[in-house]
């Protein structure tokens, strides 16, 4: 080796190799034969080895392999420190010794070495501006043609780059590049000359000349999101065009107007890109105030934005692909690329970017920073939804925009649908970032009585004010319905038609999960869950099939079929060849294989990589169809799930939790349908009253109740109890009001108490009281014996024999009195019996039958609750307990009261009667009776209360007889 023209670099290497040999072999004497041999061996190995260049993947693989090996040998501490050390090494900042990381990126290293050498030369642009990085491509291209003798350490590498790659036009003192002298390419000069000649005040400015290729390139970079440029500059987050840039073949203003047009799009791209970076947490620079990234980090991810960003990101990927293709064309120099041509080629994309930016501005950027996530999510979804409908209505002109927005929307809606899915399938509302419109109130446990009403809060967002109302209890389906008119535009619009179902299904599912369902069902459910498709997948599949259906319009079907047939034939021939290779000749098998492959390839096209490929090519999501699409693709799945969940819940409640039996029990005891049982109970009380003993003792009442119930239904006796409420003594004036305050209570176990609430029991109790009062009146009339009066009259007649002539005179009226008493008694009986009949058979029984029928058909728990309430309010109304018809009830009560007074008098005996009191009773009764008959007749004539007809008729019949 001739040492004369060794470079310094080679000398250093030689020295190092010698050092190495000395160190490893331990031979210090350089002249020794062994040393020389070793040196030779080393050099020959270094120069002529068979190894490939180090590459980072391979190294990474062996790093991982070693880690795995250490783990296998359970050298945990070693493995750990291995990982730590390798990571530390790979991440260590090595400003000047990049060579050590040669295997990471050799190219990279060379570049940075180049630059670090030139650092003092005050390069205006750093490497990140990609002005150099992107330009590597042409350099590599040229490397093949131009023999490069450029190595690390050579000082003139930079000038080589400048000559062969790109002139640093970003530096102020760029030499003018040579260009044609043709008039067309000197328009600027011509124009300048002209202006100079015509305008005496014109002052030629300093200009930076660029070529059109450079302008195109910077345009492409700008649109692909690169931040530092020469021509375009960022000023406070805005993209502006540099003033002094000119090309030789255009006037200053002309270029400027074109570039400003581009800068607008660049601005949009930049803004969207920044949003993407913010959401993904990839912050390149400190965010300006009012951005959202600062909040992130500790908070759970806001999935709706993430999904939106993912959709944007996918769009940008395709956009950048297009940009790269253009750039490659530019580099290839096979055809002329002009700025106008590029813009023309990008027009559809630019239009889409405009749409995206518009949606982004209204949907995301304009939302004030401290808005809660739920508002932001629904606002974004609503904006997209509205934008789709808006563009849809334009029709054909904006098909591209609609297709783009639709794909964006389907992506963005994904978290929402996943939340819904999780909720209605597993009964678990998983929403860490609080973005869903319904939120769980944490403080209500599932097995609480109020669970059904108070567990969820529905957020409704008013679009105009951007404010949020917290609707109390609005989560129960019924109240949502009431809010409907007010919140037309406020909820996430696309979910509105099925919101009720979602809520019902979700709540039902959660309740169901918390009930002790049968084991078998549980395990069954688990296995099925693995195969289950998520709501989102179902939705996508439906959308796919729907869009495809639309493609297969009758005109197309023939060609479509032909196409399939052709591809089938082609596939078949391929498969047949394959089979022949294996010496199998079976055409049928070949056809079937071909069909299989065809199907599969179709499948892959649609679902490759879990991506949504909402067939953009179909581009046919038009106007009304968007809502129709939702209706046919999304809602049915939710509807189906809703029916399933709620059906399950209803069955479980009815079967395992004996809901129907509890409802029956309520009717049995409160509405006295268990006649014999309750008869035992109330007659005991009435007897006590009759004997003028005090019955208002809790112990006595409870004993009676337990005795009566315990005999027949022992399991109910523990649940039933009776209470006495203290009543305002003023109201107790009338004997009939004695019973007031008697309250029956039935302990309903969870979860049936969701349906039979204490509120319901209150209404039941009102009816119960009324029934008791009627029963009492009836009982006291029924138990009056004629013998008492007879005895009394005999007594008096016996007295009369000894008595004075006045008393003899009185005999006639006494008999008359007895007769009148008998008559009055019968009339009263008729009245009470009619009333009793009306209430027990006409009202309670028939309404009860209707109720049972409805309960059987109830689809969800909410409906069941409503049916129950409606039933209660119906019987409440029809028993005339409503405030509005209280005058009717008062009249009835008066009559009942009269009955009690009458029976009291009857029992006291004949002697105490007075002709005036009988008169009074008769007239009172007559008045009340007449009043009732008139009122009821009026009501019946109006036809508004058909059920009253029977009561009116029977009362009238009684009245006419008077």
């Amino acid at each position, binding site marked *: 080796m001739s040492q004369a023209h060794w470079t310094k670099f080679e000398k250093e*290497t030689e020295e190092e190799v010698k050092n*190495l040999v000395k160190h490893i072999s331990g031979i210090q004497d350089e002249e020794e034969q062994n040393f020389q*041999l070793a040196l030779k061996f080393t050099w020959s*190995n270094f120069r002529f*080895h068979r190894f490939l260049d180090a590459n980072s993947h391979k190294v990474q693989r062996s790093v991982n392999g*070693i880690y795995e090996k250490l783990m296998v040998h359970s050298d945990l501490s070693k493995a750990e420190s291995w990982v730590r050390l390798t990571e530390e090494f790979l991440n260590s900042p*090595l400003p000047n010794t990049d060579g050590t990381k040669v295997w990471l990126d050799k190219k990279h290293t060379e570049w940075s070495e180049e630059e670090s050498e030139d650092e003092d030369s005050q390069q205006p642009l750093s490497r990140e501006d990609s002005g150099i990085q992107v330009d590597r491509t042409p350099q590599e291209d040229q490397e093949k043609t131009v023999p490069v003798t450029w190595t690390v350490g050579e000082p003139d590498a930079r000038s080589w780059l400048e000559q062969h790659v790109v002139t640093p036009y970003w530096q102020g003192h760029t030499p003018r590049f040579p260009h044609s002298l043709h008039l067309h390419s000197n328009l600027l000069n011509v124009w300048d000359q002209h202006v100079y000649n015509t305008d005496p005040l014109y002052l030629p400015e300093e200009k930076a000349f660029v070529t059109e290729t450079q302008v195109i390139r910077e345009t492409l970079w700008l649109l692909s999101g690169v931040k530092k440029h020469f021509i375009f500059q960022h000023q406070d987050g805005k993209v502006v065009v540099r003033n002094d840039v000119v090309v030789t073949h255009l006037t200053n203003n002309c270029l400027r107007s074109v570039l400003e047009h581009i800068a607008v799009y660049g601005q949009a791209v930049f803004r969207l890109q920044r949003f993407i970076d913010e959401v993904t947490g990839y912050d390149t620079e400190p965010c300006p105030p009012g951005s959202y990234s600062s909040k992130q980090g500790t908070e759970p991810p806001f999935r709706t934005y993430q999904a939106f960003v993912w959709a944007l990101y996918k769009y940008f990927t395709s956009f950048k692909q297009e940009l790269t293709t253009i750039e490659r064309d530019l580099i290839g120099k096979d055809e002329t690329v002009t700025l106008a041509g590029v813009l023309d080629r990008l027009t559809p994309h630019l239009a889409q970017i405009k749409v995206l930016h518009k949606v982004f501005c209204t949907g995301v950027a304009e939302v004030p920073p401290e808005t809660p996530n739920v508002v932001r999510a629904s606002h974004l979804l609503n904006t997209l939804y509205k934008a789709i409908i808006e563009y849809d209505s334009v029709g054909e002109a904006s098909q591209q925009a609609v297709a783009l927005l639709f794909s964006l929307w389907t992506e963005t809606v994904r978290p929402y649908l996943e939340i819904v899915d999780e909720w209605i399938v597993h009964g678990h509302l998983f929403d860490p970032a609080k973005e869903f419109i319904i939120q769980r109130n944490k403080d209500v446990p599932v097995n609480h009585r109020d669970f059904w009403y108070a567990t969820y809060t529905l957020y409704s967002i008013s679009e105009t004010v951007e404010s949020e109302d917290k609707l109390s209890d609005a989560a129960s389906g019924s109240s949502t319905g009431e809010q409907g008119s007010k919140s037309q535009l406020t909820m996430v619009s696309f979910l509105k038609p099925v919101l009720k179902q979602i809520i019902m299904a979700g709540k039902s599912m959660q309740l169901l999960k918390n009930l002790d369902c049968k084991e078998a069902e549980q395990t069954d459910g688990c296995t099925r869950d693995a195969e289950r498709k998520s709501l989102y997948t179902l939705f996508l599949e439906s959308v796919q099939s729907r869009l495809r259906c639309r493609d297969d319009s009758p005109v197309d079907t023939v060609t479509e079929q032909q196409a399939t047939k052709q591809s089938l034939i082609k596939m078949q021939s391929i498969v047949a060849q394959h089979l022949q290779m294996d010496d199998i000749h079976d055409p049928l098998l070949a056809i079937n294989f071909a069909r299989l492959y065809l199907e599969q390839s179709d499948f892959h096209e649609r679902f490759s990589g879990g991506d949504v490929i909402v067939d953009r090519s179909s581009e046919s999501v038009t106007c009304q169809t968007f809502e129709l699409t939702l209706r046919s693709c999304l809602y049915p799945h939710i509807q189906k799930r809703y029916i399933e969940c709620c059906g399950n819940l209803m069955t479980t409640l009815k079967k395992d939790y004996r809901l129907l039996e509890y409802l029956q029990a309520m009717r049995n005891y409160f509405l006295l349908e268990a006649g014999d049982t309750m008869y035992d109970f109330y007659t005991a009380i009435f007897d006590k009253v009759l004997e003028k003993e005090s019955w208002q003792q809790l112990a006595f009442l409870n004993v009676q109740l337990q005795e009566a119930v315990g005999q027949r239904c022992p399991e109910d006796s523990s649940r039933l109890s009776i209470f006495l409420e203290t009543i305002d003594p003023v109201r107790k004036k009338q004997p009939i009001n004695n019973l007031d305050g008697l309250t029956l209570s039935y302990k309903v176990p969870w979860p049936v108490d969701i349906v039979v609430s204490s509120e319901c029991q209150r209404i039941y109790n009102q009816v119960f009281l009324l029934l008791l009062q009627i029963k009492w009146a009836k009982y006291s009339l029924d138990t009056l014996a004629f013998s008492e009066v007879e005895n009394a009259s005999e007594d008096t007649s016996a007295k009369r024999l000894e008595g004075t002539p006045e008393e003899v005179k009185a005999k006639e009226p006494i008999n008359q009195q007895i007769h009148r008493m008998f008559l009055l008694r019968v009339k009263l009986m008729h009245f009470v019996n009619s009333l009793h009949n009306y209430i027990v058979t006409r009202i309670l029984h028939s309404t009860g039958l209707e109720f049972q029928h409805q309960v059987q058909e109830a689809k969800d728990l909410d409906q069941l609750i409503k049916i129950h309430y409606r039933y209660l309010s119906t019987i409440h109304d029809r028993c005339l307990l409503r405030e509005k018809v209280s005058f009717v009830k008062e009249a009835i009560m008066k009559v009942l009261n009269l009955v009690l007074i009458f029976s009291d008098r009857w029992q006291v005996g004949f002697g105490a009667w007075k002709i005036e009191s009988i008169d009074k009773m008769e007239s009172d009764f007559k008045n009340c009776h007449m009043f009732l008959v008139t009122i009821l007749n009026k009501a019946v004539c109006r036809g508004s209360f058909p059920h009253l007809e029977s009561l009116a008729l029977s009362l009238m019949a009684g009245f006419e007889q008077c």
Partner: protein
Amino acid sequence: MASSANANNMNAVRETMDVLLEISRLLNTGLDMESLSICVRLCEQGINPEALSSVIKELRKASDSLKVRPCSGDRDRYLQNGVNRDTIEQGCPHF
């Protein structure tokens, strides 16, 4: 300014070297700080790291056999073989 940058630089290099030394200990390469830094320098000068590792192994083998049998004829032959042989086992972890 320049000196402090230099000092920072030196520190970074030193730290990296420490890390490298630890890695090499973990892998039982038997290289001390000095030989390690020679290796690093060689790598920086563009020597293929795998070639380097194979050379080190061969040299070690040779010098071991040299110590066991200090007969020069054998040793020479061995080294001669080593130079000509182009398949060298790859047991050692790659740098």
